[in-house]
């Protein structure tokens, strides 16, 4: 048995080394004095201060945060509606087609989503002069695939939730809509938060779809990073990466602690 334990620990150590060494190397070399990313020349924080002076990059980051925020809000609304239909509307005619349509964007290569939406936007623009390509089209495009992810998250919560509270409220004469807002919504709220964060991250992370549907005035952060990465490694990108990794790790840690506490409370 102990032989098996050791095997298990080795597998996990190797696997996590594979997942984390690239990220750790990014952070280590972001503090490197030398411009040559892989040659160590002493500790320095100069790339961080250069990053803070890079107006273009900061502008792109701000645009991405705005798009990500609006996209996340829109996706949570759409995704929650879709999840309700899929879980609760057992007899709806729209259930089956919706089920397939929600699953497809999850795996659809982003290059297909990007090109197809661009062609739609171009045709619409020719037909009625709207929408102009830029921030709006990126939000519309992002929410199309983000909502699918939100649906998955909210759906699994709806499936597993205990319905007796809802039934009790109904028995006491509450109307369905009222029950939804006062009973169901608070119960599934954690999944809405998780879905919102997921949608935000997906949007902040997308290069391909945004490259297709964005206009000249709207360069998102990934588009900016990509054009700089294409020219080779740059310590400024390492500094940016380290900041992103730090923010995400802290957020995941907090979420983990909250979830752990909730689980504990539920057990009592």
């Amino acid at each position, binding site marked *: 048995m102990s032989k098996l334990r050791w095997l298990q620990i080795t597998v996990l150590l190797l696997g996590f080394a594979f997942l984390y060494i690239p990220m750790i190397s990014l952070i280590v070399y972001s503090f490197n004095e030398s411009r040559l990313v892989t040659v160590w020349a002493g500790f320095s924080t100069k790339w961080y201060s250069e990053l803070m002076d890079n107006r273009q990059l900061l502008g792109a980051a701000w645009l991405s945060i705005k798009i990500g925020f609006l996209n996340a809000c829109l996706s949570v609304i759409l995704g929650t509606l879709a999840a309700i239909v899929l879980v609760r509307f057992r007899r709806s005619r729209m259930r089956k087609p919706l089920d397939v349509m929600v699953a497809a964007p999850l*795996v659809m290569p982003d290059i297909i989503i990007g090109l197809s939406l661009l062609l739609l936007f171009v045709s619409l623009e020719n037909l009625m002069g709207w929408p102009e390509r830029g921030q709006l089209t990126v939000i519309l495009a992002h929410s199309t695939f983000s909502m699918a992810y939100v649906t998955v998250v909210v759906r699994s919560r709806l499936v597993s939730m205990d319905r007796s509270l809802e039934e009790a409220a109904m028995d006491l004469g509450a109307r369905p809509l009222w029950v939804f807002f006062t009973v169901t919504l608070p119960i599934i709220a954690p999944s809405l938060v998780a879905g919102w964060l997921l949608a935000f*991250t997906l949007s902040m992370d997308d290069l391909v779809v945004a490259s297709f549907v964005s206009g000249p005035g709207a360069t998102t952060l990934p588009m900016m990073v990509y054009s700089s990465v294409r020219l080779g490694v740059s310590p400024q990108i390492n500094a940016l990466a380290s900041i992103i990794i730090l923010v995400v790790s802290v957020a995941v840690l907090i979420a983990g602690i909250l979830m752990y506490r909730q689980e504990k409370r539920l057990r009592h």
Partner: protein
Amino acid sequence: MNKRLSGLIAGIPTFWLVVLFVLPLLFVLKMSLTEARLGLPPYHDLIREMEDGLITIKINFGNYVILAQDSLYLSALWGSLKIATVSTLLCILIGYPMAYAIANSPKHLQTPLLMLVILPFWTSFLIRVYAWIGILKSNGLLNNFLMWCGVIDEPLQILHTVWAVYIGDAYSYLPFFILPLYATLVKLDRGLLEAAADLGARPVMQFLTVTLPQSIPGVVAGSMLVFIPVMGEFVIPDLLGGPDVLMLGKMMWIEFFNNKDWPLASALTVVLLVALIIPFVLMQNYEQQDSKDKA
């Protein structure tokens, strides 16, 4: 519930996906049948009004003929299939033992371990691919390490080869493989394992006859979650692969952005879509089986 209200609830997401997901795919199909031209927009419209007021529809299969005749595009299709297959196999090779080890670790450790698997997914995809440039290049971390160990005398050329693409794909999509497989493995019927053990099966035999067959749905679901997006991947072959690494996604990007040939890029997209139908149906079937099991 009020019928009009429930119609509205079902209607909004359905309408959204029809307009912004299904309809655009039809636009791609239409575009693939038009002819490219210089100028703006860079194509002849399918439906045209002639000078004499007649409306003509001109369907052009030329783009597909080009795709079938030019060996470049066939190699791109072959490259996509090959790279997606190898990357999926790599994910199985690395991901199965990991999922198995997590599913068999103490209960209180499983959630933190899973979070460690998911964490990289929350950080930027682009930046994680970028990290591999620094590791794989000829004076990068990996080569320096191997030379320091004395395994090799001169740096290996890994970056800008197909190997770098395999590594990048497996690395980026590993969490997508581990999660569904883990979900299948924790649901396994423990009683069957105990029964096998009681009947004298050794651990290896138990794994081969009980665990492995039962975990196949998770393996298929996870594999498709890797295979399908890798088929159309652009960023990884572009940043890590060299010019001779041909994939559909990369070709399509080049046709669209560099050559401004929208119709040909659309035809390539249609080819990619058709190639993805079988894996997609496979995935849907296993998912439905899964939800039926739950019910």
